[in-house]
């Protein structure tokens, strides 16, 4: 009995969720996400090379990475003509996605460029 009630409640919830769900084209969404990942990866590599050449060590490099990613976010917003909701379903897509993966490439190329320029 209880199980039956639960299932009916969840069914009701899910139908409500379907009603509330905004419809959008998933393929275009995926294309947009691919564009964002591409931009972020490339710019974190370039940012890593620049941080290495400038000779940043320790915390300054990470601050530089945050700066680069903030500029990238602004650039992506400008590319979306500042109407984010017609290209993405939430703000997090444009601000946060690809951040951690980019950080790893950043650290790799940061140490690489620093070693080449300042140590060897």
């Amino acid at each position, binding site marked *: 009995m209880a199980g039956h009630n639960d299932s009916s409640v969840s069914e009701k919830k899910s139908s409500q969720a379907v009603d509330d769900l905004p419809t959008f084209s998933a393929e275009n969404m995926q294309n947009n996400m691919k564009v964002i990942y591409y931009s972020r990866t490339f710019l974190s590599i*370039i940012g890593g090379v620049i941080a290495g*050449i400038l000779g940043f060590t320790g915390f300054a490099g990470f601050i530089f990475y945050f700066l680069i990613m903030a500029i990238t976010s602004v*650039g992506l917003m400008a*590319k979306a003509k500042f109407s984010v909701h017609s290209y993405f379903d939430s703000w997090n897509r444009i601000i946060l996605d690809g951040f951690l993966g980019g950080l790893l490439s950043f650290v790799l190329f940061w140490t690489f460029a620093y070693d080449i320029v300042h140590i060897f």
Partner: protein
Amino acid sequence: MGLGFVVGVVGVVILSHAAYSTIQYRSLLKIMEEEFSGPPMNVVVELLLGLVLCMWAALTVPGNFLSIKPDTDENRMVSLPGNLDFMIFNHRGKVFSSEMDMKLKI
């Protein structure tokens, strides 16, 4: 695509030149027996220039954003014609004479 790619390549070349001049500056400092305090001015300018060029390339090369809203102009054509089951050639409307025929008769 082509222009953005070329701009990105130019940016990377500028960055590598900045790296090379920093290496030369370090060897000069080693000869003069001074400590490295920061990169010289022309290197900083080159780095900024390279960053701007690469930023532009990174924002243009991957392609344009496509609108995800179902009611925009790009998404107006839904994929029904792609599914052959939904194609209809015969329907009951053809037994009624169309307005065009009526006009021709009159």
